């Protein structure tokens, strides 16, 4: 496996989506390739950081206008 081939499949590797054979090839390549190891670590960290981004709270004025809108629109004739 070349650095290029590893680079193309790295997200699938990190997400556990590759066959054991290919995973083994990747592990073997990484044993002797510090740049690929560091690239993999920082790509994994990028995905981890995305997962930890905070959820924003809806500002109270927008929440109020949303609920007014929905209340108006959900009324149905009896």
């Amino acid at each position: 496996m070349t650095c290029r081939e590893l680079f193309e499949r790295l997200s699938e590797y990190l997400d556990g989506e590759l066959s054991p054979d290919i995973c083994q090839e990747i592990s073997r390549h990484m044993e002797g390739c510090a740049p690929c190891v560091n690239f993999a670590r920082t790509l994994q960290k990028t995905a981890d950081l995305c997962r930890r981004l905070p959820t924003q709270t809806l500002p109270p004025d927008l929440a109020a206008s949303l609920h007014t809108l929905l209340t108006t629109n959900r009324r149905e004739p009896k």
Partner: protein
Amino acid sequence: MTATPPRDESALIEASQAGDPRALDELVRRNQDRVYSFAMRMCRNVEDAKDILQETFLGVVRSIRDFRAESRFSTWLYRIASNACLKKRRRGVFDPEPEQEISLDALMPRPDAEGRKPEIPDWSEDAERALLRGELVQQMEAAIDKLPREYKIVIILRDVEGFSAEETADLLKLSVPAVKSRLHRARVFVRKELSRYFEAEQRLGSPGGEPA
């Protein structure tokens, strides 16, 4: 005296489908921050995020009876929100143009002129420290925001919101390989932006470091 709305999501959905307005209110309340965050990340504009939020929940209110329990409620909700985002005309003049391709070739580290392997710093530990100092969220958001929309929505759904590749493909009407390909390109792009940030930090922190 009014009864408390049920707490379990599936019970809330059933009650909403049966016409209980308080259950529907509660369902909206429980999901409004997530949808707002998603919309803000997608368009970076409060007015657009408000429109997307309203369109999404109007869709929920109008179609809750059509929701079938074989799919997850969040997938159904995000399908409505994603459609609202993608059809929204973007207002920001700095927004990347749609249909832009991210080339992996352009993002792949290259050997130097003498064929030596590129130096790739491992900044994963620095990232943890920067996160603790509260410096990284803005960098992450700015990096994601530079992505073309088609890539941005995939990394947000997969890595920020935690949907699987199959769910993301289903809710964006893409193939699973297309989702994986866009996700990989988006991650590599965001990683490169973060690398630039950490390299700049390194230079600032160590005056003897390599010039830019």
